């Protein structure tokens, strides 16, 4: 391509890049600088903040709420990803049976993924009410539990309550990606396996799973990335409570920055969140680069 073509190409590409650099790239670097300073509501306006080195980070490492939120973030993410993958996979297999309404029904399930997370959170908060919540009512009517579960008020249960809501959001995403993968598998392999006398289970574990491995990895890692950074769902459902039981890195960072106005501490938590995600993203990028020409 000529020099001129190159230049015209930049004219098309650059405006979006510059916009993203201004609103994402610059804040990202600013956030790193911020985490090494002592900016709070008082000195933000007057500009007399100072560099304090790694103090924010060492303060965090001494703070048990930070460790709780780190642990919660991992439990939340792994719990969500595991179950939404499992259920999503089962649904993908089911809707892959070629019956007439399968594509339409599968499409309708996507609704749960499109609803604003604030609304989903509110909905589950309502359904998970102690006495009158519909989930407890149904569980009691079916005889599964005898006392209402304190979904959002019991510190031992609350994290799982939020995970359940997140699973509901994530199932269609897993299902659709796995469906796309399933429909791309060659029929011939299954036919010859049938001729060799393989049953459905053998076909699933010896053909489907190995052939689908790249898709499975991508779905899981993407699920991890999108769940790890979740804010709205937790913030609206529990606000991190009761007693930090559902505090995750994103809500903890938000509370530090915008409730306590320790901007630098909040920035440091956000950076830790970012570093973990960045490492996962790199693994993901390596994986998809092997699959397709970028």
């Amino acid at each position: 391509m000529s020099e001129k073509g190159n230049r015209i190409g930049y004219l098309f590409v650059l405006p979006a890049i510059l916009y993203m650099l201004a609103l994402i790239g610059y804040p990202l670097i600013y956030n790193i600088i911020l985490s090494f300073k002592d900016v709070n509501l008082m000195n933000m306006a007057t500009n007399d903040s100072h560099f304090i080195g790694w103090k924010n980070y060492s303060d965090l490492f001494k703070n048990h709420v930070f460790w709780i939120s780190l642990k919660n973030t991992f439990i939340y993410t792994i719990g969500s990803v595991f179950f939404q993958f499992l259920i999503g996979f089962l649904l993908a297999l089911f809707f892959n049976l070629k019956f007439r309404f399968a594509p339409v029904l599968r499409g309708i399930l996507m609704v749960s993924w499109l609803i604003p997370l604030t609304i989903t959170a509110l909905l589950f908060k309502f359904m998970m009410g102690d006495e009158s919540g519909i989930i407890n009512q149904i569980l009691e009517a079916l005889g599964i539990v005898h006392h209402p579960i304190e979904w959002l008020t019991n510190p031992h249960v609350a994290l799982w309550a939020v995970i359940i809501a997140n699973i509901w959001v994530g199932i269609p995403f897993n299902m659709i990606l796995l469906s796309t993968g399933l429909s791309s598998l060659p029929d011939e392999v299954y036919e010859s396996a049938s001729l060799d006398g393989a049953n459905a289970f053998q076909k699933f574990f010896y053909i489907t799973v190995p052939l689908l491995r790249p898709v499975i990895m991508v779905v899981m890692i993407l699920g991890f990335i999108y769940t790890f950074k979740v804010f709205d769902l937790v913030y609206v459902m529990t606000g991190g409570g009761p007693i930090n039981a559902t505090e995750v890195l994103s809500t903890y960072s938000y509370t530090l920055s915008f409730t306590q106005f320790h901007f630098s501490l909040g920035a440091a938590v956000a950076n830790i969140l970012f570093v973990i995600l960045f490492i996962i993203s790199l693994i993901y990028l390596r994986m998809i680069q092997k699959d397709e020409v970028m």
Partner: protein
Amino acid sequence: MTRSKQWILSIIGILIVLVFLFPVYWMFITSIKTQGEIFQTPPTFWPHHLYGKSYTDILSSGVTRNVINSFLISLVSTAIVVVLAVPSAYGLARFRISGMKFFILFFLVTQMLPPTVILTPLFIVFSKLGILNTYIGPILASATLGIPFSVLVLRTYFLGIPKELEDAAQIDGCNRFTAFVRIMLPIAFPGIIVSAAISFLFSWGDLIYSLTFNRNQELWPLTASIYNAIGRYGIQWNSLMAFASITVLPVFILFILLQKHLVKGLTAGAIK
């Protein structure tokens, strides 16, 4: 597949959908129940008394204002996304520019970034620029959700359009820009609509940016206002669910209008 097996599978499929989407049904049904019926045991699975007062209540409490704000923020940010992402996607699909691989990577990474990371810096920057408590902050910030997604989806879309079409246009006297505007944009229009719709939904669902950059409740979109209402309405779930129903209505309308394309677009954007 036999006919009866077809039927059995269809019925199971419908049951799965009904169970899975029960929360959405429950939201709407609660919004037209009386407060007494909501707390009745055993619960009623359809309202015995139709009750529309929750809707008139929240309408008179100024929800129209929030609807307008939501549309304003989402539409303007979608416009920014389209204006920036469409040419960028085209450029990345058609020109062999140096650094292209890096640019694509850049969009991929920004798409995965947690909003929390840019929240505090943007708050400080916006406050220094004096644009806190205006529409500008949420609009600018929520456009960053749609841009990388749209660039990546539309680049694939442009790659699928035969290059000969443009070459023909250039022979007929178009330059690269007029060929882009007159030939490529109309062909890519369906793809642009879908990515615009998805960007709209991203902005429509945003809570964190409006909550952080706007302390002025007059300027809040539905999401921020409903978050605030949780405390105000307490256990008046019919009002809250009416609020929620109004918020998801545009989402459902977009979904019904664009169903198949929306699903395809979302999956394309998620992988690429």
